[in-house]
């Protein structure tokens, strides 16, 4: 986007802030991993923040979002509380899931975030069903389902897209393509024309976008969500981005050439947004302020999480199911 009069500076600034919040959350979580206080695997989306920010900007609170194992950014974008999320990563009381889910199962139903998912592509059919329910109940909302490029080789991708198309459901599918399926280059394992081509083969209109350009993602998501809200059925967004970290917080990602990573680092989305804002006259202090505020928010979230208690062992037996007693002594 050309800087100047066409630029919606306030909008871009909001993206800048959210992208910093996402990055600061994950950088703090990685520090927590080093501190051995973040307990399980975390999958950072550092470098991919523009997808989360650009897409979730077009979701209302009543809209539904389903995410992946790499879902912190989506979850923050949908409006979940960073302090509760950080508690969840540390497995503490007051986490979104009471410490029972962790990073891979963060959900915040109070903001329409129906869950990250530990199984690749599993959220796609669930998203189709959530949209099916919206249609049955004649509600005006839509479902946004984000998944990675690795997901397009699993059956639920095919089944979920077909389902959404056949039943003409209000779903925005977003393939957040960071080039790697876990630690394998996706290109080497994917036949044909890739995500958008597969979506189009179901008759689902698909748009490809530079996923590191937050305004481009924002604009594409605007058009697609508008079409869905107008009753147009499912839409598909293929956003190409790059994962600047490894697959998990403990993956050094040595399988990637250093020059590839260096080149992609220069295209990372926050720097690009900052450059546009500077060109539009936002002061470096103001931009630095966005970063500092985000870092302070996440540090405070982290400190509060560290101070929060672990859930009691009795939680192993709550919310299993209504029928039957799960305790061993019942047997």
């Amino acid at each position: 986007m050309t800087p100047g009069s066409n630029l919606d500076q306030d909008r871009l600034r909001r993206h800048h802030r959210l992208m910093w919040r996402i990055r600061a959350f994950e950088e703090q979580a990685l520090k927590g991993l080093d501190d051995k206080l973040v307990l399980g695997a975390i999958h950072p989306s550092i470098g991919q923040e523009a997808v989360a920010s650009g897409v979730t900007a077009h979701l209302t609170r009543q809209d539904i979002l389903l995410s992946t194992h790499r879902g912190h950014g989506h979850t923050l974008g949908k409006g979940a509380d960073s302090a509760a999320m950080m508690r969840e990563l540390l497995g503490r009381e007051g986490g979104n899931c009471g410490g029972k889910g962790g990073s891979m199962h963060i959900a915040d139903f109070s903001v329409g975030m129906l869950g990250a998912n530990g199984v690749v592509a599993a959220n796609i059919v669930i998203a189709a069903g959530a949209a099916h329910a919206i249609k049955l109940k004649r509600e005006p909302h839509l479902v946004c389902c984000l998944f990675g490029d690795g997901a397009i080789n699993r059956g639920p991708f095919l089944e979920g897209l077909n389902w959404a198309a056949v039943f003409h459901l209000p779903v925005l599918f977003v393939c957040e393509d960071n080039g790697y399926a876990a630690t394998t280059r996706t290109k080497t394992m994917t036949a044909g024309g890739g995500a958008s081509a597969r979506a189009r083969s179901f008759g689902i209109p698909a748009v490809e976008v530079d996923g590191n350009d937050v305004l481009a993602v924002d604009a594409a998501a605007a058009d697609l969500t508008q079409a869905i809200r107008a009753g147009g059925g499912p839409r598909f967004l293929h956003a190409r981005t790059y994962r600047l970290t490894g697959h998990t917080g403990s993956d050094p990602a040595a399988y990637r050439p250093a020059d590839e990573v260096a080149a992609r680092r220069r295209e990372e989305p926050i720097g690009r947004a900052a450059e546009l804002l500077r060109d539009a006259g936002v002061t470096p202090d103001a931009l630095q302020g966005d970063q500092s505020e985000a870092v302070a928010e996440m540090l405070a979230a982290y400190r509060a999480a560290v101070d929060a208690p672990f859930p009691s062992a009795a939680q192993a037996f709550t919310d299993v199911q209504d029928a039957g007693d799960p305790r061993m002594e019942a047997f």
Partner: protein
Amino acid sequence: MAMTSYLEAGRDALAEEMRRDPLVWAVGEDLGRGGVFGQYKGLVEEFGPERIADAPISEAAIMGAAVGAAMMGTRPVVEMRFSDFALCAMDELVNQAAKARFMFGGQTRVPLVVREPIGMWRSSAAQHSQSLEAWYAHVPGLVVVCPATPADAKGLLKSAIRSDDPVVFMEHKNLWGLTGEVPDGEHLVPFGQARLVRPGSDVTIVSWSAQVHVAAEAAEGLEAEGIEVELIDLRTLWPWDKARVLASVEKTGRLLVTHESVAVAGFGAEIAATVAEHLGPQLKAPVRRLGAPRTLIAYAPPVENAVRVTSAAIADAARSMMGRD
């Protein structure tokens, strides 16, 4: 009391619940034309194609969509056509439906019912004959229901639809035509309460689904020989009526568990172990279980029949437990 078939009982249960609650809907392959066995016949005419929804042959999507739709507050009844095909939807059932409530810290419920026709009938071979109820009983979060009679098919399906837990509802294909009395009016059967099929003082036989009828035949024959069988139809495997089974074995001192499914790691083993743990020293004979051998179900009748647990085998086992072999 009206005489109703097992198939009609299930259909009546669904229709009643759909009339009662507009959020109940059914989804599966060929439902619009009545379902593969006719168990949905007439429902699309009453409820329309949105609530009796045809689906593509796409089990993962059927189950996964039901998970999403259930988390959104509707109550989907999922038809899997044959329980064998539900294996195409195991991630959706086991990793998603069964876990969402716990994993998300109680933020959601997944009130779906999966109808899975199970069991051997005739020459349907290895991929259309299985009974895998023990798999589901092993999965925390799921309810497992195996009705043996029309009254239970109705009363348990209604309870399943009203349950906030995901329920695996296993209907035996060989029972579709079985008729029996179904109470008039609102008929609900709670989970976890076994049915006493016949009282007796010598041997407790525990079974479920179609095998209950095989055991009942054996019990009748044994009565003529002076062996009084107490036959218990478990009705639901999770939760299962441990109290009823223990009370019965406490009285008889003998337990025989029989099921159509493979004996190895079958649910009979769970019952046998529980009874042994609680009543071991009081038993008058070692616990016995009779299930299928750990082989596959064949097409040709003589080979297929080789894995059936017959009433003769049950009677033999009971006689031996009574020291009459």
